[in-house]
């Protein structure tokens, strides 16, 4: 079947196209070149509308153990946002930690066609995949968490050669069916199990004797040498701690030019100036990003209201549990592999710290020059639920709206922030870079995030409006792999997305080390640990897609 999309204003930064009026053709789920005289089977008149690739959320907690702990923790939040069975949609719940089904519907209704779960514990990867399999209408993928797992720390502390570490990292990516590698509070989740309460960049883990700096260097090198497109995804030390801007700057310097992605960097950009010993480090962070081309970051913007923070960082979540609102929280130590902490939060605009966090996130967005290296996230649901993205986009695109909001927050916070003086307004083109082309490039998804021939036909069509929040909240059409799934705000078809992975080459000899380790110390057999393809593809809904790693990347 040939579908023709006529006369839309195409915003496709991967090809440098900024608002040109163009026709697009879709056949068998792919965008194709103009096919000459062939009569299309279906035509959509998109004159006056803006056409972009489907949006990609490159960091969103949509599946896995801690998300389901968050769900269990917050029945009252679900009750306030029931999602009734309607049309093709099954019932569920929304707001801070939505049910999987509702997650897929609401992302699709906003024109998102892919989301990546950033904290897949190796031992819990099966659950992450089973939950993501129940997110309809979206492609998914995961970053597997390493750096507090005993096997890696043991290798590192014993002075194992980098090649062995690379093999272990690659084996774990395969076994967990992931597309990238994340490290959370490097070594800190493990250190907390040994009763350490903080682990600064150059502080030694009491048992293994290694430092977060060494962990970061080793993992970043592994990811780079394996040719995995997505750089090491880093949730740094000291999340949320005033003064952590120095840690973050040292982290950037300490990686010595290797590619590194700093996630939810807003939470890592705090100074200690002023009467309250809490200040914005956004300018220094933005400057560091601007001058270090090996660094990318997503913001993790906070927005005001109730949410829940779900993190692998059990050490910092335990430290912050006193701020839980409502007053309940969960921390968990997991299988000598990782951990998690789930703490509900209510960000308040009249609270100095929360208001300044809001300013810091926006300052970073506006001060980082290159939209290809900064990404639009709220670290869903940690800074705010993903459903607030249209509001966030308006804050970035509309300075007068931003300043209206700024006038409502804690005056003390507004007074110490430079946000009001920042004139920049993001363009549609820049938004499309951050939420499409840049995200796809960062993850190595060559056929997503753009509208050129050969791309998967994940397409979102908006009516251009002055109110960008309204524009991005309700696209006119969303196509997923060429199928029309949303029309004028209604889900018109349910399809199931793909699972994006990479499969770096490695020496299977690593299993000679791993198999006895599993048998002696862990609680499941290695063969039962590895996630087989049938587990993801077996019920006929999801397809595994394997993206190439860079050739010859190995050092």
């Amino acid at each position, binding site marked *: 079947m040939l579908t023709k999309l006529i006369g839309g204003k195409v915003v496709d930064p991967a090809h440098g196209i900024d608002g040109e009026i163009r026709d697009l053709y879709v056949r068998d789920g792919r965008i194709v070149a103009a096919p000459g005289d062939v009569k299309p089977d279906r035509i959509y008149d998109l004159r006056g509308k803006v056409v972009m690739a489907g949006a990609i959320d490159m960091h969103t907690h949509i599946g896995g153990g801690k998300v389901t702990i968050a769900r269990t923790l917050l029945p009252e939040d*679900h009750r306030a946002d029931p999602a*009734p069975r309607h049309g093709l949609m099954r*019932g569920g719940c929304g707001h801070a930690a939505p049910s999987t089904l509702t997650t897929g519907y609401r992302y699709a209704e906003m024109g998102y066609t892919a989301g990546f779960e950033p904290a897949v514990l190796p031992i819990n990867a099966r659950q992450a995949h*089973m939950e993501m399999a*129940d997110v309809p209408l979206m492609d998914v993928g995961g970053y597997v968490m390493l750096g507090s797992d005993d096997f890696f720390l043991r290798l590192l502390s014993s002075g194992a050669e980098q090649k062995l570490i690379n093999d272990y990292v690659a084996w774990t990516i395969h076994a967990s069916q992931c597309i990238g590698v994340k490290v959370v509070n490097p070594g800190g989740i493990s250190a907390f199990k040994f009763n350490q309460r903080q682990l600064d960049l150059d502080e030694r883990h009491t048992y293994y004797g290694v430092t977060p700096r060494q962990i970061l260097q080793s993992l970043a090198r592994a990811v780079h040498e394996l040719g995995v497109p997505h750089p090491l995804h880093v949730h740094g030390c000291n999340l949320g701690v005033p003064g952590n801007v120095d840690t973050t700057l040292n982290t950037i310097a300490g990686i010595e030019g290797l590619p590194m992605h700093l996630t939810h960097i807003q939470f890592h950009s705090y100074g200690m100036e002023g009467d309250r010993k809490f200040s914005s480090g956004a300018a220094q962070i933005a400057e560091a990003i601007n001058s270090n081309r090996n660094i990318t970051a997503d913001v993790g913007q906070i927005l005001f209201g109730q949410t829940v923070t779900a993190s692998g960082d059990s050490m910092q979540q335990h430290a912050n549990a006193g701020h839980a609102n409502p007053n309940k929280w*969960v921390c*968990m130590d997991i*299988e000598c592999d990782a951990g998690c902490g789930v703490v509900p939060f209510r960000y308040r605009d009249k609270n100095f710290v929360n208001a300044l966090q809001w300013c810091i996130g926006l300052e970073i967005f506006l001060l980082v020059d290159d939209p290809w290296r900064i990404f639009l996230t709220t670290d869903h649901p940690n800074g705010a639920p993903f459903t607030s993205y249209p509001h966030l986009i308006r804050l970035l695109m509309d300075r007068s709206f931003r300043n209206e909001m700024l006038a409502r927050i804690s005056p003390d916070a507004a007074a110490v922030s430079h946000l009001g003086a920042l004139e920049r307004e993001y363009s549609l083109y820049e938004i499309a870079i951050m939420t499409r082309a840049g995200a796809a490039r960062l993850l190595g998804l060559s056929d997503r995030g753009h509208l050129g021939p050969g791309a998967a036909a994940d397409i979102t069509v908006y009516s251009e409006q002055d109110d960008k929040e309204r524009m991005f909240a309700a696209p006119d059409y969303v196509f997923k792999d060429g199928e029309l799934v949303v029309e004028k705000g209604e889900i018109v078809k349910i399809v199931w997305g793909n699972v994006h992975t990479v499969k770096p080459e490695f020496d299977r000899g690593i299993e000679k080390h791993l198999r006895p380790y599993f048998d002696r110390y862990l609680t499941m057999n290695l063969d039962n640990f590895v996630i087989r393809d049938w587990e993801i593809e077996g019920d006929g809904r999801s397809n595994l897609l394997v993206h190439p790693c860079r050739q010859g990347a190995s050092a």
Partner: protein
Amino acid sequence: MSDQRQSKVWENVPSPFCGIASDDLEIEVCGEQIRVLSHGDAVTVPGFELPVTDRLPRVGGGETTLEAACTRAAELLRASRCPVFSGFGTDVNDTRAALSLIGRCGGIFDQMRAEGALRNLLVLADSGWISTTLGEVKNRVDLLVVFGTDIEAQFPRFFERFVWNAETLFGHDPGRREIIFIGQAPSGQASHAPDGHPPRVLACDKAHLPDVAAVLCALLHDVKLQVSSVGGIAVSDLKQVVDRLRDARYSVLTWAAGQLDFPSAELTIQNLCEAVVRLNRSTRSAVLPLGGQDGDRTASQVCTWQTGYPTRVSFARGFPEYDPFLFGAARLLNSGEADLLVWVSSLSALPPPVTSVPTVVIARSGAVLEREPEVFIPVGVPGIDHLGHLYRCDNVVAMPLRKLRESGLPSAHCVLQRIESLLGSD
């Protein structure tokens, strides 16, 4: 059907029946007959070895085709104003299919083991906890406090696999681990150390467990007490336990909520969780709520990610609603609010409750029913007849389940999907 004469031996088979999901079983399959050759126990052996009996579905006691039985189940669901679905010894896919059907017909989801599970879930949603997993226990625990629970009665291999292991990652000698039971003494000797050393037991009646937990929690919060003994246990003995907990590097407090079957047991569990939170101000400690037999945690996990709520969920108003009291199957059946019971249990052979309302049973072949239901559909078992997935009691580890034989029995998820398709679109 496979060749009856040839047997095949499978190694490292995961058990879907025990909540600790032991995956080191050696199993021989000869035709349809299964034998656990090694690492079996009082839970896994009957789970695996239960013979296939019924092959054909029945309607009104008469054998019929699968299609006719599904059609009759769909008719009953169409006519029902309040169908309640219970049982749920099921794996992930069976639960998925059930939830889809329940949503389609506006039914209510409950589990046969929900009463116990809710004692934990109510605490989790009210104050939370600091918890751990079996692998951490195996490698880290130096003091294990067992509260009101006879672990080996339900988890026969718990001590062998996670406490008296030969070695740990961090060089501790597992044989020196300290075990303290509060409440009942263990029924066997699984908790005795390899050198024969028995655990310490502070015995009290079940009825006194709430008081003992309150005192333990109070002592950890440095509250001065007027009493010198509680439930027959000297407060000085409980003070010693508190001192041991404070001195331990990594203590674990464990219970099986199903065994804490007294009124308001969630408040007792909450006391234990608060005690552990307090301990973590200075050292490390965690709770380990045991459970999850026959896929109980599995059904709850799937229900949570698909609806937001862990169990006892009604879809009657079109969206999932959670009420741990109103949506209990027993209450709904006894009060006459439910007019149809659909029992789904592909893992467990436990029969449905006897009730006056029409009943549809989708259960593993071999289940013995006390009363012939209106519809009975025998199905295969995930982990024996079908591939599948099952959660362990710590909610983190999901095991892949194997297909060990060709029985020709349909899976519960296929049956449930067929019934839903027979209901047509909304």
